[in-house]
């Protein structure tokens, strides 16, 4: 716990020193190394504001995004973020200048109106939720687009920077914006902390929440309100078009890395901040680069990293585990084959020759040699060049696999009434995954039978443990 907190702190410090952004559109023809140095030194107040804005935006979006992702509300977030545009325009029209408070109120109202319309459409017509979301998203955005193009026609509108709300411009964040963003961040985090348990229950187990008397609909509405606030304060940095990405992508990356929700919240906030600051930095070093798209690309980079490298859910880890499992299955099949050969001789001889093994598996001797070498490498067998001998551990594993196979065959024929010549294929697959508990239960249900449907002997627990050995590799891996 403590080490994680510290690592988060170190990370944030690192981000703070690598980060600074601003004044993208204003500077042209400046060497990018100078710009980078200006950004990194944090000397410029515009840079400081941009970085602070990106950090606040990242925290809010990441934390609320975690709820968006686990509640499968990604497309609601998308609709909400487009629907705020007319509110931004109206907020601007309030007194024809970029007044953060007026824009904040207008945009929040427009966002909430949008979600209300979605609810009304799905409640009163047969229009499905996805179509209703698309309708609200596009038609609100069209109204906003009309207003924005009308504002740009006005003498005051031309330099208003209202178009900066489309793709974001971190450099345009001023101290007043920052104050508002800080206030909203405190509000969001405070409410989350206060109602964390309620939100958690309402998100993960609605039935339980309802039966516990929790006003689930009000919790949902509260979450929607916080979401609208967050979208609105993120507008300046990311822009209306891509806010939804900052809600979804950092949280989805966190979702791939952990199963614990509170850890997911932390990670999502960190990823949001990292993406925000990185995007601000990149858009700062070149002239005329919009901030939002770079933040989104940075977030997608983080997601791609988690997608491939996550220890539990990453593509690489899954691929590796699959490879591992199929290698173990191959080893176990070799062990089983050796056991069967030895069994035919009634265990009279010590070893099994490669020739016998190859005949048993209808393969070449060379192939059999490769398989035995694999067993030797894992300490399951020894070999003297043409004969394989079980180690105690190998004998135990082999007996276990054969027992699993035969028990399952017997279970299928006795209990599921499947013909005894049809059960082999199924048992071939399941023998590798049966856990010790299931095996005990099977033995009990089958009255500790000694013979399988084909009349062959089922190795008993006593057989297996006589051959000694600690808990086997399969046992360890299944747990």
């Amino acid at each position, binding site marked *: 716990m403590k080490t994680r907190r510290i690592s988060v702190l170190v990370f944030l410090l690192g981000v703070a020193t690598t980060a600074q952004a601003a004044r993208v559109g204003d500077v042209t023809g400046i060497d990018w190394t100078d710009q980078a140095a200006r950004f990194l030194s944090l000397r410029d107040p515009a840079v400081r504001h941009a970085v602070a804005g990106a950090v606040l935006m990242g925290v809010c979006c990441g934390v609320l995004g975690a709820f968006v992702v686990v509640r499968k509300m990604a*497309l609601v977030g998308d609709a909400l973020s487009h629907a705020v545009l007319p509110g931004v325009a109206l907020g601007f029209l309030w007194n024809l200048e970029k007044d953060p408070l007026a824009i904040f109120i207008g945009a929040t109202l427009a966002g909430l109106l949008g979600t209300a319309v979605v609810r009304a459409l799905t409640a009163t017509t047969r229009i499905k939720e996805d179509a209703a979301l698309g309708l609200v998203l596009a038609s609100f955005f069209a109204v906003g687009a009309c207003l924005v193009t009308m504002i740009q026609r006005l003498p005051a509108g031309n330099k208003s920077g209202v178009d900066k709300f489309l793709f974001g411009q971190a450099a345009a964040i001023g101290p007043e914006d920052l104050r508002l963003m800080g206030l909203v961040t405190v509000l969001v985090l405070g409410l989350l902390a206060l109602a964390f348990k309620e939100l958690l229950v309402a998100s993960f187990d609605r039935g339980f929440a309802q039966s516990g008397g929790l006003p689930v609909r009000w919790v949902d509405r509260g979450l929607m309100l916080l979401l609208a606030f967050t979208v609105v304060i993120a507008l300046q940095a990311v822009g209306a078009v891509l806010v939804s990405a900052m809600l979804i992508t950092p949280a989805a990356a966190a*979702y791939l890395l952990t199963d614990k929700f509170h850890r997911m919240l932390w990670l999502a906030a960190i990823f949001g901040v990292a993406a925000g600051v990185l995007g601000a930095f990149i858009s700062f070093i070149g002239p005329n680069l919009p901030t939002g798209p770079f933040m989104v690309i940075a977030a997608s980079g983080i997601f791609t990293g988690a997608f491939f490298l996550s220890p539990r859910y990453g593509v690489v880890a899954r691929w590796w585990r699959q490879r591992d499992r199929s290698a173990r299955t191959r080893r176990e099949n070799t062990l089983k084959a050796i056991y069967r050969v030895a069994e035919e001789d009634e265990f009279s001889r010590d070893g099994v020759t490669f020739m016998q093994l190859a005949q048993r598996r209808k393969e070449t001797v060379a192939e059999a040699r490769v398989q035995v070498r694999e067993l030797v490498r894992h300490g399951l067998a020894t070999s003297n060049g043409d004969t394989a001998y079980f180690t105690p551990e190998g004998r135990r594993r082999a007996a276990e696999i054969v027992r699993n196979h035969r028990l399952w065959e017997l279970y299928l024929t006795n209990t599921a009434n499947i013909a005894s010549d049809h059960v082999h294929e199924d048992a071939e697959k399941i023998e590798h995954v049966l856990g010790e508990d299931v095996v005990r239960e099977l033995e009990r249900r089958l009255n500790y039978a000694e013979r399988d449907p084909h009349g062959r002997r089922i190795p008993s627990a006593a057989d297996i443990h006589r051959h000694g050995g600690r808990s086997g590799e399969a046992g360890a891996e299944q747990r």
Partner: protein
Amino acid sequence: MSGLIPEFDFQRVVISPWTADLGAFGWIMLMGFLVAAACGLVGNYLLLRRLALMGDAVSHSVLPGLVIAFLLSQSRGTGAMFAGALIAGVLSTVIIEFIHTKTRVKQDAAMGIAFTTLFAIGVVLTSLYASRIDLDADCVLFGEIAYVPLEPAVEVRGVALAPAPVLRMGAVLLGVVVLIAAFYKELLVSSFDAGLARSLGLSPALAHYALMAVLSIVVVSAFESVGAILVIAMLILPGSTAMLLTTRLPRVHLLSVLHAALSAVLGTHLGLWLECSIGAAMVVAGTGLFGLAWLLSPRDGLLHRLLGAMPATAPAHAAGPAGGHTGPESAARQ
């Protein structure tokens, strides 16, 4: 504030687009109609299959394909444009599938991640190479339908026929109509009953990808005129309006074409009056028509509900099989 809404000049707003300025506004209205009709017809099938938001995803995703095609071919040729859009559109569906089948991220989030990323890449490329591809960031969002009459006209034997985008859009609409007519039954069956479709030997996956390919083509040819976001409205609004008024698919198609025509004409007037983006105004007009239908629809209408006829009819159509929206779950999940 006073300068925001210009005075309503009847001559300028209503008369002149049909008389003196018909040469320009005729093309704008025709283009608006062609875009909305083609989008609306394809959109009807998206609505039936509960894929409305796939339109959202594809319309955002075609941008990088379009920009890269422009940059590589150094031209705005139709072929390069369609190829770029097709590749990007199909790529986005593949990425979405990849993310949500390989990890535990759900489909909605996978969609959100994939299309925002592609769109962000497209916007960055647009702003880096703005001078070379004559697209700017605003145009990416709203399009510039007002520039359509300024495009060089295609000439056949010395006679100026029509501006190139209008001809292209007309061809796309014609293609969509022909495809729907040719595969009407297949589309119908695979949209409503994936099981039956499979038993008839139709592949639901093939139908899905074919629909996505057509969607990409339609979206990209509409892109210059209405941009990435307004096109979503063009896809969803006509069908949603029509489905409030009728449940028979042929009538839904007819009504959505009518909706397209009305919103193109009304939107042009609205845009002229308010002096705002005409593409956005067309969508606002279409939204107005949708609002009217929502208010007055004989079945789902708000007025109808207010007048108290609700208890008698609500269970009937809730259970009825007729609904245009009862697309099969399996199609929706694809």
